[in-house]
């Protein structure tokens, strides 16, 4: 296939948009923690970005997209990007651009997981965790779904990363939170988000970047990209309004609830963006907003300190999105039908793909976190946690 400059232009900018999402997660999370951990929270996202950027070009890309080994993982044929011509390949865009586009997905996934570490992780342990997690959890899952692995073979649909990115990061954050334990004082006094405007800014940048994430996943500048763009926006808006009004009934309509709902809607539409219509995206978004809100309330009620709700929003929103794709996929959009159009098989394939990612991510993360905790300790000392990670880990303060 000849290289197409329009497609290439769209993928270039989509990659840049998705890149912005990693620090955006940092700012989103950073506004939610206490002042003494603001820099830490943003810094974690940058550290993730830098570490995964290097890991990806050396090893990760090859593990995810190298020649398939038993449906589970890629081989090392592209170690150090070996064998990728800087020029044109057999796609409408340059192969190195695909490497970059996939890279920014790997980074933002890892950034979402920092929710489970918030305000208590030791930086040195975190660095090791990042390198191992992206290699042992993300790279295989990317291979399964997109690189020729077994869930891809199964026919499970995941347009832009509902399972690979959101289910995996959300349930990984849950596993991390269970291993590292609650923040000191959690449940005893309110940990007030210290800078809500920063969280709103992060949300705005996430929403912005998500157009690259979902519409870029069309891997072309065409009608499919346009469909993905519009359903993404619609689902986000529906999710925002659903959470806003639901929380209004229970008290005041908080801005944090609204943007949480928007993220929930964005997460849920991610696997579906290339398969469903705009009206369906309204339904998907509303359900995502309500479901994730309920999950968050349940989590708090249970006294579970998965601190910044990656689990309830990305994990559960992603799960819903994967299932919703199996329900709402409409042949008119992209040739695939879901449950509503009578295709039970698609629904089943999607459910299997989602649950497999969920189980794999949760279990491997749990073991990994436990191992690191035992060997070098995941958590800062009580005193360091008290003065905050900004001072204790970075020697900086707001």
């Amino acid at each position: 296939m000849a290289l197409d400059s329009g497609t290439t232009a769209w993928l270039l900018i989509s990659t840049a948009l998705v890149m912005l999402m990693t620090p955006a997660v940092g700012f989103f999370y950073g506004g939610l923690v206490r002042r003494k951990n603001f820099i830490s929270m943003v810094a974690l996202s940058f550290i993730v970005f830098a570490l995964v950027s290097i890991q990806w070009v050396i090893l990760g890309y090859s593990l995810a997209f190298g020649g398939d080994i038993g449906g589970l993982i890629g081989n090392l044929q592209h170690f150090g990007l070996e064998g990728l011509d800087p020029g044109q390949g057999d796609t409408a865009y340059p192969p190195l651009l695909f490497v970059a586009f996939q890279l920014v997905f790997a980074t933002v996934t890892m950034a979402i997981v920092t929710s489970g570490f918030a305000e208590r992780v030791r930086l040195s342990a975190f660095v090791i965790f990042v390198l191992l997690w992206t290699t042992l959890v993300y790279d295989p899952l990317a291979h399964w779904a997109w690189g020729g692995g077994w869930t891809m073979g199964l026919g499970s649909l995941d347009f832009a990363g509902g399972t690979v990115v959101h289910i995996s990061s959300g349930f990984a954050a849950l596993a991390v939170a269970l291993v590292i334990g609650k923040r000191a004082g959690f449940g005893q006094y309110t940990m007030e988000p210290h800078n809500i405007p920063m969280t709103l800014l992060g949300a705005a940048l996430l929403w912005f970047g998500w157009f690259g994430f979902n519409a870029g996943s069309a891997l072309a500048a065409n009608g499919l990209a346009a469909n993905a763009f519009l359903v993404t926006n619609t689902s986000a808006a529906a999710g925002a309004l659903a959470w806003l009004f639901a929380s209004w009934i229970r008290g005041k309509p908080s801005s944090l609830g609204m943007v949480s709902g928007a993220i929930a809607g964005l997460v849920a539409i991610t696997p579906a963006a290339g398969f469903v219509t705009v009206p369906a995206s309204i339904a998907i978004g509303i359900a995502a907003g309500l479901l994730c809100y309920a999950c968050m309330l349940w989590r708090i009620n249970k006294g579970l300190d998965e601190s910044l709700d990656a689990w309830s929003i990305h994990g559960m929103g992603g799960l819903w999105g994967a299932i919703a794709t199996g329900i709402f996929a409409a042949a008119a959009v992209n040739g695939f039908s879901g449950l509503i159009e009578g295709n039970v098989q698609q629904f089943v394939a999607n459910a299997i793909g989602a649950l497999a990612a969920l189980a794999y991510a949760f279990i491997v993360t749990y073991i990994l976190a436990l191992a690191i905790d035992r060997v070098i300790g995941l958590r800062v000392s009580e005193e360091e946690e008290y003065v905050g990670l900004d001072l204790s880990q970075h020697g900086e303060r707001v």
Partner: protein
Amino acid sequence: MMMVKAIIRPERLEFVKQALEKAGINGMTIREVQGRGDQKGITLTYRGGKMNVDFIPKTMLDVIVADEMAEKTAEIIMNAARTGKVGDGRIFVLPVIKSFRIRTGEEIH
């Protein structure tokens, strides 16, 4: 000397400052504080948690004046800071034993 410590509504500061200036009192030190009293608060709701906020932003004002000026100063502040609604604030007068000007090192009487 006396320290007249006033807790007022932030938006009345400008008026208080002008009233004191008219009376020839220029020096003062202020800061933002939060007060709790009869003025009722509000319930915050975060993503999930709730929290009762009953501290309202106020401005605290320290004015050191000669003993005989203390009552007069308090009166000026009260007149300028008053809106008549709950939450107008308080004034406390504290004794000051000694007072120095750093620039010169001299004691002020």
